[in-house]
């Protein structure tokens, strides 16, 4: 027995001395980003450009800059089919990969985000639900691990009302107007309802809520109601096939397309192209510019596609949802860079990245350095504010491409922020969370 122990000890010592055991510590550090994608299933037309945008931005970072401050970016896709159960499975599968586990997670689904919210503080993996998910998470005193900048559904709804007011000639002109909200009958689709309701009371417009059941392939009843109601404006929170059918049905009841405005998940290329000529004039909200006119696109084209525009286009280069993923990937990598400035130029843990997210300050100068000046607006996150309440743009489809047709439209922070704090406080009570002091 003693001989056996001696042999084992000797073997152990030899192995340790030879450096085999130390090998993992010597391996190049990597910053791992899990990618929850949906390249198949009913929402694939929206999921494909998003997945391609993330992949291309990370690839470009590695090729152009050698990663983030010398730490190579790695990523792995896991197919969720936009299914919440599969999304959670993917998260569990990927959260431990990389040098220190997942950097952060972009669920790209409100349903998956809701399921991951309680897991984030336990696993110490921050969630970046950019412009989707639980709006109340904008209150960082309750939701320490969740970030939903640059703006939320509630802020978006308030900006839409500001846009309508602009078009009608002032907020006082909203009184007596009729506004309909056509929404996907899901947690996501209903998000804008409370804000639109509060603003209806404030400004005196008549709000009609029209739900459309998943998947939204058949909407005749909804649009017959629109035809009868004749609202002055229609706002839509749709997703997937619901958007294409809605655009076509709106045209079928002769609803003026320039008064039909989708939210930022109802304004991709896949939403309008299948509807053909019917979609001309349709509008939607946007967090960023469409197209490929920014320097970041030049870099992606050069480093990822070797200048082959045709190949890039096959991968949705410059489409609305592709650009959204580029923006999202940039936010994540900049959070890592912010964290590295404090903790050192090495692979960051989830906890350090959370600090990076909370201290993110993307100025116009920084956006310019990233090749994204004008592409989006500056963002500054704090302990209490995880949203930053950024303004939105309105884009319009001309039959060939999306064009920006507005300036940046401000949100109604005075209305939305108290609602967020109230909802966050209720969540904290329900879940026995003691809000932290953000000073």
């Amino acid at each position, binding site marked *: 027995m003693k001989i056996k122990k001696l042999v084992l000890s000797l073997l152990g010592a030899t192995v340790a001395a030879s450096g085999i055991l130390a090998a993992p510590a010597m391996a190049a550090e990597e910053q791992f980003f899990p990618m929850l994608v949906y390249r198949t299933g*009913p929402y*694939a037309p929206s999921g494909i450009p998003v997945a391609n945008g993330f992949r291309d931005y990370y690839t470009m970072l590695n090729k152009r800059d050698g990663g983030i401050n010398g730490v190579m970016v790695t990523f792995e896709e896991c197919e969720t089919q936009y299914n919440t159960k599969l999304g959670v499975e993917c998260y569990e599968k990927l959260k431990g990969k990389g040098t220190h586990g997942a950097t952060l997670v972009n669920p790209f689904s409100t349903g998956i985000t809701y399921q991951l919210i309680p897991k984030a503080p336990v696993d110490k993996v921050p969630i970046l639900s950019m412009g989707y998910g639980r709006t109340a998470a904008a209150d960082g005193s309750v939701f320490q691990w969740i970030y939903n900048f640059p703006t939320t559904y509630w802020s978006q709804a308030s900006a839409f009302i500001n846009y309508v007011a602009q078009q009608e000639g002032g907020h006082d002109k909203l009184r007596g107007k009729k506004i309909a909200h056509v929404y996907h*009958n899901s947690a996501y689709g209903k998000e804008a309802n409370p804000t639109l309701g509060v603003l209806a009371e404030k400004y005196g417009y008549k709000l009609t809520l029209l739900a459309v059941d998943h998947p939204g392939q058949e909407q005749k009843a909804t649009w017959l109601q629109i035809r009868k109601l004749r609202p002055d404006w229609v706002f839509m929170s749709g997703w997937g*096939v619901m958007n294409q059918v809605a655009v076509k049905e709106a045209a079928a009841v002769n609803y003026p397309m320039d008064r039909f405005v989708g939210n930022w998940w109802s304004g991709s290329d896949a939403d309008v192209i299948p509807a053909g000529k019917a979609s001309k004039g349709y509008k939607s909200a946007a967090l960023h510019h469409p197209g490929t006119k920014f320097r970041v696109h030049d870099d992606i084209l050069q480093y990822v596609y070797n200048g082959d525009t045709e190949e890039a286009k096959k991968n949705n280069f410059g489409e609305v949802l592709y650009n959204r993923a580029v923006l999202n990937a940039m936010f994540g990598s900049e959070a890592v860079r912010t964290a590295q400035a404090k903790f050192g130029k090495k692979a960051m843990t989830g906890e350090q990245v959370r600090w990076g997210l909370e201290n993110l300050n993307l100025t116009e100068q920084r956006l310019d350095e990233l090749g994204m000046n004008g592409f989006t607006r500056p963002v500054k996150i704090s302990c209490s504010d995880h949203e930053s309440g950024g303004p939105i743009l309105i884009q319009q489809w001309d039959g060939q491409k999306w064009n920006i047709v507005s300036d940046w439209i401000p949100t109604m922070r005075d209305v939305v922020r108290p609602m967020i704090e109230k909802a966050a406080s209720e969540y904290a009570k329900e879940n026995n969370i003691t809000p932290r002091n953000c000073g």
Partner: protein
Amino acid sequence: MEMLHAFFVAPFQEMWEFPLFLAEVVINGLLTGVMYSLVALGFVLIFKASGVFNFAQGVMVLFAALTLVGLMEKGVPVWLALILTMVVMVALAFAVERFMLRPLVNQEHIILFMATIGLTYFLEGFGETLWGSNVKPLDVGIPSASFDFHGLLLNEFDLFAAGIGAALVAGLAIFFHKTPVGRALRAVADDHQAAMSVGIPLRTIWIIVWSVAGIVAMVAGIMWGAKSGVQFSLSLIALKALPVLILGGFTSVPGAIIGGLIIGVGEKVAEIYWGPLVGGAIENWFAYVLALVFLFFRPQGLFGERIIERV
């Protein structure tokens, strides 16, 4: 009291006050119903001939539409793409008979049903591998303008779809009742053993019926695909056909049509007049409630064959 009034009086008052709008709702319901019937027909054909509920019918709609639009994207003219898609659907019928049905001859219907579930997932994956998952616009030249007809707003596309549905039903009725193959199909539907004993080849009949169901799926795929673009969610349209089948009966072609019309009108009227009272989006489940109410009185559906088993 107020609630009772809202549910049982106000909707009828509204119908009375705005008869033109009610007419528009009913007409649109009828036209939507025809679209549902197009999908339901495929189920009926296969169930009639083999007693198998073909779970894959919805995916066949998607697969046919994907094939058509995929060929068109490759520059094949519409007429040729239509013919080639038909050829693909007939080839699929041969493959289904050879690799799925033949090895399962004389098995329980539930086994065959489960095999069609397998076929569903295979076709889903195969279709996406072959043609991709992106949404594809489908334009085969069907007009889609809306026009005013005595105060009613009608859409050319919906009317065209109704015409196609009517032509398809007429064609199928002639096929089933006036041709030898149709008679053989009916014989197989009535009694497999008896049909085989008089020399009707069961396998050939299965190929024919799956081919016809495939072509019907193609027509349904074109009509629905032209509305929303060809994409994965087309396969979910089968869910809309299910209440139509429950109501119309699984073995009746006219039942699929009448069932579709009743479901179409019923769900639209319910959604518009009663939906707002309960938060809306009731048409999907209301179609099933309507079908179940009919089922309560006629378990075999409106036109289904009554099953009598003697002990």
